[in-house]
Each structure stands twice: as structure tokens, then as C-alpha cells.
């Protein structure tokens, strides 16, 4: 079980793979938006604390802004992370499976997640809808909370789309008995994963130690 590794996802010319890559393109942009918001949060917090120390002038409604931003960077990248197999899991058992058994179990667990996600899309939508319809506001500066509440069902809907694609991928692999299917994250042995984890930090050119 690993923290942040991106698993290998194969591609080819099939419709499945093309849809996979198109969706991935969009998912990556949503995730980057989340990353930029994180950077913005860091800058906002820095401005807030420096403003307080130097000019006795903190950012008005700082806490409200942070709380509203959090749902965005917590959710925008959720489908992207699923695409790359980045949500942690325990693969000690299924890593021992292969072929149809493996794709069958993967299909089942993906289906379970999809069903849960659909439930949550609806529940989170209703949560948004209450804030939209009846009203809700933040504590200090009365920011409406519905945008942050809306980002949850929307991101989860992207996740549902991604999960459906993965179901298609696993289903097809199961049907064909495919040893290396496209559009789904493949289980790699721990050593391969570890090497990737290492590259993650080190893939930039190191001027002092070119490798």
C-alpha cells in the first residue's frame, strides 16, 4: 500500500483508450486548478500573517475564505487520483491474483465504489441544494456556501464517470482475458512502485549529479 504513487495506465487506439485519455486531459486540468488554489491559500495565509504582524491589518474574512476554498482543492482532483490509482488501498491479497480472477475482483471493487459514489452524488447534491434553496452563509463575512457545496457533487460526478470507464476497462479485460488492459491502473510490484515514488522527487535534471 503506497501513498502517492501513480500506477501505470496503458493506452492504445481503441475507443476506450481514447475516451480515457480525453477524460484524463480534463481531470488533469481540474487537479492543477486545485494545486493552484493550494498555492493561493499559502499566499493568502502568508499575506494574512504578515499583514497582521507588520501592519496590524489581517485579511478580512480570512477564515471564511479558507474554509470555502478547502472543498475545491479537496475534491477537484478526485477523479484524476482515481485514474492514476492514487487512492490508497491494501493490495496484498489481490496482488497475488492474475488474469480473469484479478479483473473480476477489480471489477467488483470498482462497482462498489461506483455505487457509493452515485449515492454520494445525490446526497451531496441535496446538501448543496438546501444551501442554495434555503440559504447558508459563512460566519464572518456572510459568504454564500453553495459554491463550495456544489463542487462536491460535481467532482464526484466526474469520479463516477471515471469509475464507469474503469468498469468498462476491467469488464473488457475480463471478457477477453487480456493480460495488459488499457485505461485501468495496473498493479505493479512494490519495487517498481518504489522506483516511481523515488523518481517523483528526482525526475528533474540534477545539475550536480546527472544520471
Amino acid at each position, binding site marked *: *500500500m*503506497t*501513498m*502517492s504513487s*501513480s500506477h501505470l495506465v496503458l493506452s492504445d487506439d481503441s475507443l476506450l483508450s481514447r475516451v480515457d485519455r480525453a477524460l484524463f486531459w480534463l481531470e488533469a486540468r481540474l*487537479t*492543477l486548478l*486545485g*494545486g*493552484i488554489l*493550494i*498555492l493561493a*491559500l*499559502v*499566499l493568502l*495565509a*502568508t499575506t494574512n*500573517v504578515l499583514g497582521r504582524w507588520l501592519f496590524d491589518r489581517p485579511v478580512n474574512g480570512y*477564515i471564511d475564505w*479558507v*474554509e*470555502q476554498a478547502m*472543498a475545491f*482543492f*479537496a*475534491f477537484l*482532483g*478526485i477523479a*484524476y*487520483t482515481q485514474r492514476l490509482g*492514487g*487512492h*490508497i*488501498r*491494501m493490495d*496484498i*491479497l489481490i496482488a497475488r491474483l492474475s488474469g480473469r480472477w484479478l479483473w473480476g*475482483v477489480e471489477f467488483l*471493487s470498482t462497482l*462498489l*465504489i461506483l455505487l*457509493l*459514489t452515485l*449515492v*454520494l452524488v*445525490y*446526497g*451531496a*447534491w441535496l*446538501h448543496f441544494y438546501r444551501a442554495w434553496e434555503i440559504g447558508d452563509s459563512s460566519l464572518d463575512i456572510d459568504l454564500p456556501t453553495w459554491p463550495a457545496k456544489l463542487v*462536491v457533487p460535481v467532482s464526484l460526478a466526474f469520479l463516477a464517470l471515471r469509475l464507469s470507464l474503469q468498469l468498462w476497462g476491467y469488464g473488457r479485460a475480463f471478457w477477453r482475458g487480456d493480460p495488459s488492459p488499457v485505461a485501468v491502473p495496473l498493479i505493479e510490484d512494490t*519495487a*517498481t512502485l518504489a*522506483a516511481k*515514488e*523515488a523518481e517523483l*522527487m*528526482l525526475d528533474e535534471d540534477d545539475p*550536480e*549529479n546527472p544520471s
Partner: protein
Amino acid sequence: MSNLFDAMMAMSHTEIGIWVTGAMLLFVLIGVRVAFAAALAGFLGLVWIFSAKLGFERGFLVAVKMAGTIPHSKVSTLALSLIPAFILIGFLAYHAGLTRSLFEAAKRWVGWLPGGMGVATVFSTAGFAAVSGASVATSAVFARIAVPEMLKLGYDKRFAAGVVAAGGTLASLIPPSAILVIYAIIVEQDVGALLMAGFLPGMVSALIYAGLVIGLAKWRRNLGPPAPRYDWKARLAALPAALPVLIVVGIIFVCIYGGVGTPTEAGSLGAFVILCLALYKGMRWKELRGALLETAKLTVMIFTIIWGVLIYVRFLGFADLPHAFAEWIGGLHQSPMVTLLLILCAYAVLGMFMDAIGMLLLTLPVVYPAVIALNGGPDVVAAESAFGLSAVGVSIWFGIIVVKMAELCLITPPIGLNCFVVAGVRPECSVQDVFRGVVPFFAADVTTIGVLIALPQIVLWLPSQMGFG
């Protein structure tokens, strides 16, 4: 069928809690991603409990609505805003070239000792821990930088790899540490107090590692021969490049310990300083974009598991299971210390198969109230408690020990990730080599945990200076 349904509806909350928890473990076992396994079990549990009360149709709808409020509600918690800042700082620190500067400085200062390059590795990983919250990443970076230098001096390759794999684990104790933040939030303890609490145990760990390296090098000369001495001029010349780490440590201390800012502000200021340094060192949009993408992904991963597990925790709240478990633990006829050690052993076993964050999030909602009950309850004073600590003290102390325990599992087979990372980076070391190399460090970690259990003051001294404990 309807008999089964009736039987299910008639079960006590504790029975429902046990069935649902079992279902969650089953989901985790068949490879459902932990966040969703917990959320799914929690949702099914809510359906069960509400159906028993309101009938299936209404109960199901109430469960859907309840589960649907949790992702937004739990994610929009101010204290959690610290996590992305802590993650970002680690990715930026690499681009700012801090790893190399740290190692260079440590090498010049302590390299002349027996096993000196190993000691330098320990100290520079400890230094990097002050700007990074992730132990695996720390091991990866230092495997690249420190192992070749040790091998050049004729170090035993297993020993060299072991130092790096173990040194990486320091990152989770020495602040900033994402896992300590998560612990603090789950148990509703002060984040700043926990971050400060990790500092001394992290230092103690580093010193025990360093002592071990020196001892081993003295005992077997070929393990780690000393490096050439540097004169004072060279030593001082290496310091400025490592200075930013001190600045970040300073910011965190001044903000949290000195009480002039929140932990989030400390993390953000630190990230800002490192960002400026990285930009100055030539990081451009391409690298920044990569760092932001990785930060966002890791943030999403952590937040997803947080809200997923909290759906399960919400179910536990309705089932009142933690209360039942705490009463059971509290009613055991054995010494509380024995129970605590058994809990820690269970964590050690679980940690061999699970990621630390997932493990803590899944277990703490039930285990933590039990530990507090074991000590004598949430309002107990130190003098009347089982462990001689106040409730706040126990919650901080237990947190540090559990995190150290989780880190220990990063260097144990079968999936001790730090070892795999080191073997992955160094083609000359096999995984077996690294696992053999870390054996003495494993022993050192067990010693450290023993010391922390015996001397809670090491954990609690800094927080008590802040008024916690």
C-alpha cells in the same frame, strides 16, 4: 428473506457496529480503496440504523442525505488547511536544493567521526524532516545523495542503505508532519501541541540512530570508516546554504511554540520561504506545475480518506460503538499498561500491511476513546490516572507513540516502503540487502518506543510549556 430483514432490524447497535466494521475490513481486504471502503461501510451502517428506526424506504433516504452532508462538512475544517501547505513545502524543498546543502554541511561537521558519513546522513535526514512531512520521499532523496558517498568511502552497502531507509522515518515526527495533523484532528486535540510534541522524540530518535551508527562503526571497522576532516573554515562555509531549513524551523517554533501564529500560518510561511528559494534556484513553471499537481493529488488522497472514514465515524456516532468498546476495554481485569502494550502490538502488526494514515484513520475513532478510558476518562487529573498523565497528556503521548509505531512499519517486511524505495534508487542494493541493513535500526526504534513509553516527559515537555498536558 423477510426473516433475515426482521432479524437485522432487531439487532442492538453494538451488534450492527460489529457487522458493519467487519464489512469494512472485508472491503479493504478485497482491494477496495480504503477511503471508499470506509465510506461504503459507514453508509450501509447508516442505512441499517435508520431503517431499523424509520423503516427501509425512509431510512435509506435519510442515510443518503446524512452521508451526503459529510464530505463537504468535514473537509471544510480550518485546521485541515495545514495539510496541503505541509505537503507543498516538501515538494518545493527538493527543488530548492536543500537536500544536497544539508548533507554537505552535515558531512563537513560530523564526517570525521567513526561511521561519520552515516551520522551525517542521520542528521541531514533529520534536517530535511524539518521541511518535509513524508518519510518515503526523504529516503528516496537521500538514497540518491548519501549512499554513493558512503560507498565511495568503503561503507558496507547494506549498512549504508539501512541508514537512509531508517533516517527517512524521522520526517513524520519532526514537524511539519501531515500524519500528526491528521491524528490531532481525529482525536480533537490541539494541532500545535502535537506538532511540538513530535519534536523532541524526533531528536531522540535521531540521536539514538547516530549513537548506533557510531557504535556499529567502532565495533566493525569495515562497516563505516571515517571521512576526511574538514577545517572550521570549510565547516562554516557549508552553513549558509543549509540556512533556509533553520529559517523554517524557526518559523514553526516562533509561530506555534512562541504563540504568534497558527500552525497553518507557520506551514504557509515556511512554504512561502521555500517557494522563493526554489524560484531563486531556478525552478520554473514546468517544475512548479509538477509540484502543484503532485501536491494536489496527495492532498486529494488524504482528504478523501478523511471524509470517507468520517462517514464511517458518523455511523459509529449513531451506533455509539466507541463508547461500548471503551467500556469493554476499561472493564478488562489486567493492568492498563498491559492493555496499552497489546494495543501497540496490534498497531505494529497492522502497520506491516497498511499505510500509516489509513491505519490511524480507520482505527483511532474506536481505539482512542478506549485509551482515554483506560487512563481514567476525559476529565481525569494526572494524579488519579492509570498512566500518571492527564487526559490531554495521554492523548498527545499516545499520538506520538502510535505515529512512531507506524513509521517503524515503514522499515519492516513485507512491504516496508522505505526499504523498497532505497533499493529502487540504488541498483547495487537488493531489497534483501536493505532489509538486512535496517535490522539494527529496527532495534533502535523499538528502544526509542520503549524510552518514550517509560519517559512521557520527552513527549510532553514542550507541549506542557505551551500549557497543554
